[in-house]
């Protein structure tokens, strides 16, 4: 074998490095890492969402002219505030990708398109968890009459299930609205009716926990409703998401 032949062979090997095929979990993790990194560096969504939510509590205090709320009223205020704050994050979720070519770059990669949905939904879920870590104690401090400490363990399940629903529906709606002319208007218009069942389930499950005289754990059917709704909409979002990313 001559020297040049060997060199060519080595070059060819260097050009086509042998790598294990990229699994879906790796793709999702890479995309999620990128999302969180961008958010950490720009701080575009989460601080705004948290601040907005706390501001809404203050607005509710003056609009209702009440120092403390409890029961269904408290659950309603908490969920309306969280929903509106989540809407801010949903509206911003795909803006950078649409404006700065993120969609095109993603489409060039030979990976499953559903990975983008999953990664974005996980990122939104992370934003919502951070939002609630700030907003729920703030709610307990500012508006809630009964003490938050007792209700907190029971609150975790409805919060987690509602966050899953918000993440699935929010990601789908954000992808639908982002490449339209009126994206800021269409996002909430599409998302709010779709999220009404989530609000029904979450508010009903939370109300007994926030009641003045502890009225026991929430009826399990609300958690079940939330879980089923999350599951069905997660599947729907996964089924139709591919069609939003074709050009």
């Amino acid at each position, binding site marked *: 074998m001559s020297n040049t032949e060997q060199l060519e062979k080595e070059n060819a090997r260097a050009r086509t490095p042998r790598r294990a095929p990229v699994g879906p979990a790796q793709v999702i993790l890479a995309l999620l890492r990128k999302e969180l990194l961008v958010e950490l560096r720009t701080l575009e969504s989460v601080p705004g969402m948290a601040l907005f939510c706390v501001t809404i509590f203050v607005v509710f205090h003056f609009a209702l002219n009440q120092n403390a709320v409890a029961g269904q009223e408290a659950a309603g205020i908490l969920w309306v505030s969280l929903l509106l704050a989540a809407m801010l994050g949903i509206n911003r979720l795909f803006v950078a990708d649409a404006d700065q070519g993120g969609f095109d770059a993603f489409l060039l990669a030979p990976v499953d398109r559903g990975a983008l949905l999953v990664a974005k939904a996980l990122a939104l879920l992370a934003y919502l968890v951070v939002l609630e870590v700030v907003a729920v104690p703030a709610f307990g401090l500012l508006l809630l009459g009964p003490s938050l400490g007792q209700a907190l363990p029971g609150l975790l399940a409805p919060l987690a299930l509602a966050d899953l629903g918000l993440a699935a529906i929010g990601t789908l709606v954000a992808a639908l609205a982002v490449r339209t002319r009126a994206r800021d208007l269409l996002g909430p218009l599409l998302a709010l009716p779709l999220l009404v069942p989530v609000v029904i389930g979450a508010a009903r499950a939370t109300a007994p926990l926030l009641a003045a005289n502890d009225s026991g754990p929430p009826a399990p059917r609300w958690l079940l409703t939330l879980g089923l709704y999350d599951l069905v909409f997660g599947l729907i979002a996964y089924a139709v998401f591919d069609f939003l990313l*074709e050009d």
Partner: protein
Amino acid sequence: MKSWSRHPAGSSEMDRRPPGAVNRDSPAGSPFLPGLRALSVTTVLAFCASLSLVFFYVPIEAEEGFVQKIFYLHVPLAIVSLGGFVLGGLLAIAHLRTRDARWDLRSYVAIHMSLIFGAAVLITGSIWARASWGHWWVWDEPTLVSFLIVFLLYATYQPLRFAIEDPERQARYASVFAVTAGAFVPLNFIAVRLSASYVHPRVLGAASNLPGSMAFTFLVSLVAMALLYATLCSYELAAKRTRILLKARSRILGFQ
């Protein structure tokens, strides 16, 4: 694209076929479906029959009196409207699978017509609620509330659709919306029904617990309403196709 051409599948459908190609659905290049005349006549006859039954045959309900007859208008309207929303979703699935713009046109027409029917449902429902419960709107009627939520969701169909410039993407995004919303219709009804406390008894549930004459009249009204929906959809489809054909022809003649 000119601004007057608001039909959804306009240029993409045109691009798919050679200019001037005749519509495959009908002979001689007419955009009308064959049998549209027969369908129209049947609808008129069915509506005459249903209205005669409502006003001259079915007995006046004992508790609510004459105003209960709006039931034969309101409930069929609601059923046909919801069916149309789900139909729009199914047609949208066909569009996403085949990429044929004609399915998108059909899905658009089905949802558009259901929205018009839906507005009529809310108006007739309000009138009925006012007459029998004394309020224009009642929150403890889960069917009415879930219908409002569905109506509000579908009211964003056209703003979404016409906020997208590219006709191909417009059709695709509208179909994704139609599929999602079509699946949302039954889910939403289940969720709202769960949330309602059954304090108030349901005045009229399914047609099964109606007396015979009322059930018969209700079924005839339902068929008449479904026929009306089909006829109006066919006319709207014909109008859209005519406009597409006209555009194609005028392009050949160099008007555009």
